[in-house]
């Protein structure tokens, strides 16, 4: 079986408080990464656990584990026209789907 290069570059873990952007990777066949968070900047609220990469486990592929995070987004950043400034939404994101963000 071919070695999976993609998830070898797991990179340093994010820390609580880090700003991250959800990567806009291709949707095909299966993912648990939600469309409405794509490209949106949020804040790491917690490191939850390490687990198998969902896109590999779903196909019974012997993949490696990656870190999962709880990411906090401002609702105003997620939904055009959202009326309330202080509302937030937290959801789970795996490491591969996040990249560092500055703003």
């Amino acid at each position: 079986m071919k070695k999976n290069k993609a998830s070898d570059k797991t990179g340093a873990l994010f820390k609580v408080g880090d700003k991250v952007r959800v990567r806009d990777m291709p949707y095909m066949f299966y993912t648990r990464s939600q469309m409405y968070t794509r490209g949106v900047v949020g804040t790491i609220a917690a490191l939850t656990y390490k687990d198998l990469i969902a896109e590999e486990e779903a196909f019974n592929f012997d993949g490696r584990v990656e870190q999962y995070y709880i990411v906090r987004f401002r609702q105003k950043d997620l939904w055009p026209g959202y009326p309330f400034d202080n509302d937030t939404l937290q959801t789970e994101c795996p490491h591969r789907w996040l990249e560092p963000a500055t703003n």
Partner: protein
Amino acid sequence: MPSPDLREQLELIRAIQPAVHAPQNWNYENTGPMYKAYMHPPHDVGGQFDVPIYYEEKEEEQWELNTYVSCEVLGWRGVWTAEERRRRADNDLGYTLYLGMPYYARWIWAAAKMLVDKKHISLAELQEKIAEVKSRYEKK
């Protein structure tokens, strides 16, 4: 900030959902004829109503030829058979993709899905590779 494409994407996804659309998951019963209609394979189109189709003389494009050759080579190497290719590309992909994608796009979709299903590549690897190639073209 909210993705400018999000609203458009959600609208498109709503538009390609089937016209007969049970609310939530509450349709616990389907009539016999409805069940047969749901089970019908998408590629068996004989006798269905459709609009007149314009007949166009058109050469294959390069990506179509590449797709054809890739799929044939996968056959020669014993990774799949032509019947499996037809099963995946004409049937398993479902009505929405069958009716919405170009002919050879269905072939390459089926080849990629087959390679992931059979663990020749991982889906995570494929996602990363597509993203990498896409960003390379965007920089040019």
